[in-house]
């Protein structure tokens, strides 16, 4: 009987969701979001005043600290946190099986190595999707329930963005979809490093180190590093924020329902997609060639 990818995916998902480790990510995300929401609920007005101090005399009407702003704050803070949680699973998918000795059992079955790797990758993508949905429910929907709905007031380095409350929700949906592609890129990196090792710790630490290193390089204002910035995946991972920039008309008024720099977002999506394809192609190549000695 031939295996199909759906069967293999079911098996991989079954393994992922039977492991206690899987739920650490869900628990850790929930804890972080709840702590932030609690802090902002208790001392939110002070935080809002602090925000407004830097822009001088500005008359704000309505509810500044609303669910949309809280979600934005949470997502900014979780920018590094969520990729690390994805790494915990992705970088363990191949090397974890190698270190536990189950990889040799798996690869001596009548299933091609490419199918095994791809089933594992798709399962990681499903896990990443569910984790992101979990974060979205807690960060956006729960924040809206607790803090209510109002216009979104964002401070950028050179200007202020105010988006009407009925023009925000779809931007979050787009931002979460973009974040999903970013996280899949991290998963692909974890997978590639996982294919090179026979233990879990090395690929997990290496993936996390690369994310941190690339993020640091991206923030350094040194010409030699600025030149490589466009090629670092971490540079493109933060582009989700561009969904919260509107176009302006000749009178400098925001046009509802528009995105200021859509080509830049599409460019970043393409770069991340190329990263995913190259990393997964390399992973399949390595696993197909590898002697299983563990």
């Amino acid at each position, binding site marked *: 009987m031939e295996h199909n990818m759906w069967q293999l995916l079911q*098996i991989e998902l079954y393994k992922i969701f039977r492991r206690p480790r899987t739920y650490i990510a869900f628990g850790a995300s929930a804890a972080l979001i709840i702590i932030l929401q609690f802090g902002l609920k208790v001392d939110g007005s002070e935080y809002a005043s602090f925000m407004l101090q830097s822009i001088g005399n500005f008359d704000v009407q309505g509810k500044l600290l609303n669910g949309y702003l809280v979600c934005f704050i949470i997502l900014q803070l979780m920018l590094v946190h969520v990729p690390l949680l994805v790494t915990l699973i992705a970088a363990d998918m191949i090397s974890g099986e190698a270190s536990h*000795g189950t990889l*040799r*059992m798996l690869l*001596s079955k009548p*299933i091609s190595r490419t199918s095994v790797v791809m089933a594992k990758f798709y399962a990681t993508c499903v896990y990443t999707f569910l984790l992101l949905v979990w974060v979205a429910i807690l960060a956006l929907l729960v924040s809206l329930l607790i803090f209510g709905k109002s216009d979104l007031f964002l401070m950028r380095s050179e200007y202020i963005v105010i988006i009407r409350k009925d023009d925000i929700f779809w931007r979050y949906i787009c931002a979460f979809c973009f974040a999903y592609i970013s996280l899949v890129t991290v998963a692909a990196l974890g997978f590639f490093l996982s294919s090179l090792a026979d233990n879990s710790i090395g690929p997990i630490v290496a993936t996390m180190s690369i994310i941190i290193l690339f993020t640091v390089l991206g923030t350094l204002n040194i010409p030699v590093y600025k030149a490589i910035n466009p090629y670092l995946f971490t540079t493109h991972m933060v582009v989700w924020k561009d969904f919260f920039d509107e176009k302006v008309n000749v009178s400098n008024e925001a046009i509802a329902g528009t995105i200021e720099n859509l080509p830049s977002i599409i460019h970043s999506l393409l770069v991340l997609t190329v990263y995913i394809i190259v990393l997964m192609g390399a992973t399949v190549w390595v696993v197909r060639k590898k002697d299983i000695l563990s």
Partner: protein
Amino acid sequence: MHPVISVQHLSKEYKNIHAVNDLSFTVNEGDVYGFLGQNGAGKSTTIRMLLTLVRPTAGKIELFGQNLFTHRNKVLRNIGAVIENPDVYQYLSACNNLKLFARMSGIHPTTNQLMEQLDMVGLKDRADDKVQTYSQGMRQRLGIAIALIHDPQLIILDEPTNGLDPQGIADIRNLILHLSRNKKKTLLISSHLLSEMEQVATRLLIIDKGKKLVEGNAETLFDPAQTVIELETLNNEAARIQLSNSQWQQALQPQRNDKILMKMHRDQIPELNVWLVQNDIRVVGLQSRHSLEDYFLQVTNGTQHVATFTN
């Protein structure tokens, strides 16, 4: 007899180390093929090549008459294997591990079939316990259940008695005999213990440093006429002189340690015993073993000899 496994000039080199060196052998349908060698002799590497886990540097492998690497999935569907320690998913129960590996082998057994399989290896009562609570022996038995769940024609067991207590070893031996005699399976079993293989194997291959040393039928190799006696007396010097002047002269072997070595038919041992008593030779110890075991021990102790056994 159809060859189930045909290995020709197989080699595997790791950075100038020949793990397997020009190895050729054939396993026929119905064989219980004992694959012997000391640790590091190349047994596991050969088995991994038979399961496509390791790619050979040179040589050809055919299973069921088909090239292993061009018909990989079709061939592997007919193989059940336990490679070294059968590592399974610790966080799953035996039943769930069995179900999961069965699905990977392309079958969907019912709960009754899973339980039957676990019953056969004596794990039915612990079917729902997580594997992390299992002893080494129980894991070994679960590995065998996993290897057999899809009813393969060829079963490959790499050191199946590793870490087992005497009862566990006896159980595995009985299971091997059951699979061979009643289920008509072909088995390739690797071990570093000749005494284990002696009891189950129909054919034997001994390798060392990746090279074939001996291959042949167990009946021929374990010929009782080739029994080695290790004799220890109160005065070995005097006993040796007495033996060399008696009808036992032809049986005496060159001295290897402080004991007297003799080779004879197993049936002659009682007669020797009587002669020793009659000649007032005080015996401290008399041990018999097959000459193949004697040879194997020499090889595994690092002294290589040229094999003189015939098929």
